[in-house]
Structures are given as structure tokens and as C-alpha cells.
């Protein structure tokens, strides 16, 4: 699989490129800013682009704009955005109307190599990766008459993994349960929260996040 990187810190950019190369990715572009990434993508389209949310020249919104831009122009390319701070508002802006092939992770996640590579792979294949901190913050958000109170602790765990972008199989693997059991938890959660269950796994990420956000 091919990957393009846009990150202004050389140290991090090279570290990331080595990590991905070691994992068998073909790193086709190592860019210092968003414009360079756009130019590289005109030449060669990767399966997934990884970019820093704060990029030169102003370090304001260049990264996010480039990510949204790439999603619109290359629907088949996964976009994984890395950030030093997590903002729910930014996650929702990035996901906007679909979680297909989108990821938003805290930069620190890079250090958990297997987990990070799994996330890159999910996004490259059209799935989602939402940082657990975003999900846990949304889950912890205070609500009046919180419907989440009806969930069992196990169901909360499943909901958290589901919102982060894990598939039913992924959930089953992590919780060391059968696929069928995972599916049962999922449909029970949808029932309790009144979320219409939708087919695709990335679509349900968005549905759950929107539910938690409101």
C-alpha cells in the first residue's frame, strides 16, 4: 500500500516514514506542507495520506483544509489527520457527512506501533479511526437523563470501540469474545439508544458520534 506524509517537523516526518516503510508501506511522498502534498498527489495518488493538522505557513487551518480538500477530490484516498491537541469540533468538521476513509488521532498514538498501524490500515481501506480520547470525552459528556446510563459496562466498552472505528470482528478480537456476541452487543446498544442501525461500519461511526455529540 502507498502512503503520503505531510508533517513539518523533520524528525517526526522521517520517523513516521521509517515506521511505515518497516511495516511494508511504500512511502511515495514526504512533504513539509499542504501545498507540496497537493502537488505530489497530482503525480501519484496514495492509498492513504497522513497529515499534521497544523502545517505551514500559518499553522492555523492549513492541515484541516487540505484534508477536507483531498477527501472531496480523491474519494478513494484515506485521510488520517494527526494532532497534538484533540478537538471535538475539529473531529466533527473533518467527518462532516461521512466517516469513510477518515481518521483523527492524537500524535501520541504513534508510539503504540501495532495500534497505530492498524488505524492506518483501517483508514487506507476506507474505514475510520477516531481517537479514543474523543470518544471517551463524548461518552463522559454530562447529559440530562443520560440514556447511556441504561448501558451495561460491557456495552459501554463495545460502544467505545465502535465509535473509534472498529469493526465487529475488531471488537470481538479486542474483547476476546465471539463475533456473534459482539454483533449481539451492537444491536442491543442501537436498540437502547434508539439509533437506526445502518449497514456500513464507517457509517455507524458517524451515527454514534453524532448521537453522542448532541
Amino acid at each position, binding site marked *: 500500500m502507498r502512503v503520503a506524509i505531510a508533517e513539518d517537523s523533520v524528525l517526526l516526518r522521517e520517523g513516521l516514514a521509517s515506521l511505515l516503510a518497516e511495516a511494508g508501506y511504500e512511502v511515495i511522498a514526504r512533504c513539509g506542507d499542504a501545498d507540496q502534498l497537493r502537488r505530489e498527489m497530482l503525480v501519484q495518488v496514495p492509498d492513504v495520506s497522513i497529515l499534521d493538522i497544523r502545517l505551514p505557513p500559518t499553522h492555523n487551518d492549513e492541515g484541516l483544509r487540505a484534508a477536507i480538500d483531498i477527501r472531496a477530490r480523491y474519494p478513494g484516498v484515506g485521510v488520517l489527520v494527526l494532532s497534538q491537541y484533540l478537538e471535538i469540533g475539529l473531529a466533527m468538521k473533518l467527518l462532516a457527512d461521512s466517516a469513510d476513509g477518515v481518521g483523527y488521532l492524537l500524535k501520541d498514538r504513534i508510539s503504540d506501533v501495532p495500534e*497505530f498501524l492498524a488505524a492506518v490500515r483501517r483508514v487506507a481501506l476506507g474505514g475510520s479511526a477516531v481517537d479514543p480520547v474523543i470518544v471517551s470525552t463524548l461518552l463522559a459528556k454530562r447529559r440530562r437523563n443520560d440514556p447511556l446510563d441504561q448501558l451495561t459496562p460491557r456495552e459501554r466498552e463495545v460502544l467505545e470501540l465502535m465509535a473509534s472505528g472498529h469493526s465487529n470482528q475488531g471488537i470481538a478480537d479486542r474483547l476476546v469474545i465471539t463475533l456473534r456476541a459482539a454483533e449481539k452487543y451492537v444491536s442491543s446498544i442501537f436498540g437502547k439508544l434508539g439509533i437506526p442501525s445502518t449497514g456500513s461500519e464507517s457509517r455507524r461511526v458517524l451515527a454514534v458520534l453524532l448521537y453522542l455529540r448532541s
Partner: protein
Amino acid sequence: MTASVSAPPGAVPLGLVALGGLTAGAVSVGLAATSDHLTMPGLHAALFNWIMLSYLLCGLIAWRRRPDSRLGRLMIAAGIGASLSNLAWANNAAVESVGLAFDLLPAVLFLHVFLAFPDGRLSGRSARALVAAGYVTTVGGQLAVALLGGFGPENAFAVADRPDAGARLHDAVLATTGALALAGIAVLAAPRPGGGRPRRRAVAWLVDAFALGLLMIAVLLLMGLAGAPGFVHVQRLTLFVLGLAPIAFLLGLLDAQLARTGVGALLVRLRSEPVDLRAALARTLRDPSLSLFYWLPQYASWADEAGQPARLPDDSARAATIIDRDGEPFAALVHDASLNDERELLDGVTAAAAIALENGWLRAELHARLEEVRGSRARVLAAGQQERQRLERDLHDGAQQRLIALSLDLGRLETRLGANQEARSAVAQAKGEIAQSLNELRDVARGLHPAVLSGHGLPVALESLVALAPVPVQLTTRLDGRLDEQIEVAAYYVICESLANVGKHARASSATVDVRHGDGQLVVEVVDDGVGGADTERGSGLRGLADRVEALGGQLRVWTPRGGGTRVRAEIPCG
């Protein structure tokens, strides 16, 4: 005023004027009484003397009150000069002929007086041209008519016997003089440079009276030209009206006199209560357009009453009276230029208002200083904000990036360690330490400056804030587009601090955050349903928030009745 101050008329000029007036009056009465061709001689003599006395007396009063102005002397000259036309009443052919030659002179004398108002000089090329053309047409034209043998058989000046040509020339002279009178009205009514109709009432009346006089002259001359019936009546009415014009002038003087008595009233009013100084001065000077300025030496600038820098108007219809203190300019009254003719009144008013002007100056200066302090406070805040933003950037690009790169390296190392449990746990511990440091740095950086705000604006930045709030928060934002960064940061901190207070002190079950932009201001409101009674001075950080908001020209208010919840409301002006 730089014109040299002339003395009022002394005894000799007064005597001469009196003698001239008496002689002209006596001669007119004598001529009228003995005239063998004058109908209603009594009425004619009375009308003439009415006009002459009116010009003479008003001229003397004007001369006395305004020795600087030549208008008074011009009026006296016009009054006496007009008597030359009375010689036409004489029975002696030669004297009558001289009178006929000057028959139309009074019309031009009045035109001259009217156009020379207020300083006795003809200002402007058109006024000078009109008056010169008037003298040439009336005196020259009438003489030419006489030379041609006009004015009947007894004309002593006839050198040719062409009465027809004389009559035609006479018609032309009448028409031209009438046209000049009409043109005079146009000059009077023409917009003054830089201003319209005079803004002071007394002057406006006077101009109307002059215009009416000129109009009557024009009508009379044209009626004479057409041989219209009723000429005699219009002639009498015209003479009467012409005598009224100086009376209007006198009324203007009287108005100024009344204004001067108003100085006393001004003094009383200024002493009794705090008043709007400008309005009081405008009333006393009878000039509603009056404005007031103060000289602030430390800014080397004029300022208006609110201390805002201002320039004195550069406009010929306006005049500035500069009031000095210790030889330095101190205040300025900017008023209609016509007030310059009433120097005494202006001096009286400025003297009466001296203390009030002093107070006004102090107020203006205070406002200017406050403005300056507000400006420097905003600059200090902006500089602090910039510095914090720079520190946050340094942390982000420096320490934080390095730590992340380091933990990435450790992660890669970890994958190569295989089953070496000891090494693995050492690496895991190091990674944990780094993660902890990163968390702490993140908190520090966020406290310095919420980076998401610069990049993405208030609504995006508020979302995490609200999600992390200790109670359910209903967030409403009504903003169209981005605001000035300083304003966004202030609003962010107001909400951040208020929500933190809700968690710490309010014992609330829910809160609302409302952010809206409208009517040139950003309004931020955080309301909770807690116990209220918050200490707004200590520990709550509200004082710091108020400083931040006030430095931007805004206002922070807190309502926190015991048992009634807490409402924090910030209003920050923005374009």
C-alpha cells in the same frame, strides 16, 4: 481680528453730519414747498426726510458701535447723497437739470450700501462691477440724456435737440438700472463661500430687507419704463421700504445688544447648575451652529468636548474665536462668520464662561487621557496575548514534537525487542513517562493559548470546552464568520472561566452558554442554575476576565443572587 481699531466718530464729524443732514432736510423742505411742478410736495419732502434720517441715524449708530466697519459712514453718505436728486424739485432750470441728472443716483447708493454689508467694503468682483456699472449708468446715462435734450424744454444742459433719442436713452438707463437692482438681489442671495444662508437669524432678516428694497427699486424702474398706471403709489411705497432697510439693520444691532444683556443671564446659569456649556453659549450668542474645542498641549492637538482629536473647521463661512490663557491657546469657539462683527459680545461671553470653559477643558483632557489609558491597556493585553501565542507555538514545534518523535522511536524499538520482557517493560515505562510529560505540556500550552481558536474560530473551540464541562451545557452560537482574534480569545476565556466556576462553586445541575454577534457587539452569556452568591472579587478569576473585556472597550457583568443561580454577561464591541 487684525484690522486696526478706529475710534468712534468725534465731535467734529458728528457736527458735520448734523449740519449736512439739517441742510439737506431744510433744502428739501424749501424746494418742495416752493416747487411749481411737484404734486403733493409735503408727502415728497416727508418721504425723503424719512429715508435720509433713517440712513443718517442708523449710519451714526453703526459708526459708533462698529468704528472698524465703513458701513456706518457709507450709510451716512448714501443718506446725504440721495438729497442731490431733490434738486429736481427746483424751479430754477439749471438747478432742476442738475437734480434730474442725479435722479436715479439714490437707487445705486442703496445698492452700494446693501452689497457692502457688513463691513462697508464690496467683497467680490461681481458686487464691485455691479455698483460701478450702476454709478456710470445712472449719473453718466442721465447726463447723456440731458445733453441730447431729453427731460423737456427747460433742460439747461441740452446741447443737441434730439429729445426722441434722449427719451430712448432714458428708457435704456431705466431698464439697465432695474436689471442691476435685480442682479444685486442675485448677489445677495448667492451662496456664500462655504456656507448657505446665514445661520444667524438677525443677519438673515437683514438680507431679506435688502433684497426687498432692491426688488422694489427694480419694479419701480420697470414700471416707469412701461408707463404703467399707479407708478406714483409704487414710488412712494418704494421710498418707504428703502427707509426700512436701515431699521432692519438697527434691529440686528438691537439683537446683538439683547445678546449682550444675555451675557449676564449666561453668567447666572453657568454658576447655578451643571449645564451643557456649548448649548448655553450657543443660546447666548444666538448661533445654534456654535461648537466648542479645547487645545490639549500634551497632545499638541485640538480636541472636541469628548476629548477626541479634532481640527478647527477650515471654512470661510465659519470663524474661530481662540481664547488664550497665559498667552497660550486654550479653547476655541467655532461660529458663524457674521459673529465676528460682534466682538464685544464674543468677548463678554468668553469672559463670562471662563470658569466653565476651564472645567470643560479639564473634562476634555480627562476624556483624552482615559482614551489613552484604554488604548495602552488594550496594547498591553495584545502584547501579552501575542507573547503567549508565541510561547504556545514554541512548545508545540519544540518540546512537544521532540517528545513525540522520541516516543515514536521507542515504539519502533519496542517492536524489535521480541520477547525480552525486561527491556520491554523498561521501554513501556519510558513511553509512559513521555506520555505523562506530553499531557502536562498540553495542559500548559492550552493554558497559554487555545490554538484551535486561532485556526478554527469560537464555535469549533467551544465544542470541547462544553463537552468537558462539569454539568450538562446547552450551547448556542450565533456568529457569522470570524471576529477579531483578541475578541475571540476574550470570549473564550469568559466561557472557560465561567464554566470552571460552575464546577467549583455553583453546585448547579445545568448551564447555558450563549454567544451571539449583533448590533456591533459580541454578547457572551453563561448562566447556571446553581446556588448563586458567588464571590466576584476573590478566587473566581472574574476580576481578570473583567480586565480583559474592559481593555477591549467592553463590559463584564455578573448577577449572582444567593439561591438564584449565576449569570455572567460580557459585551464586547466589535465591527
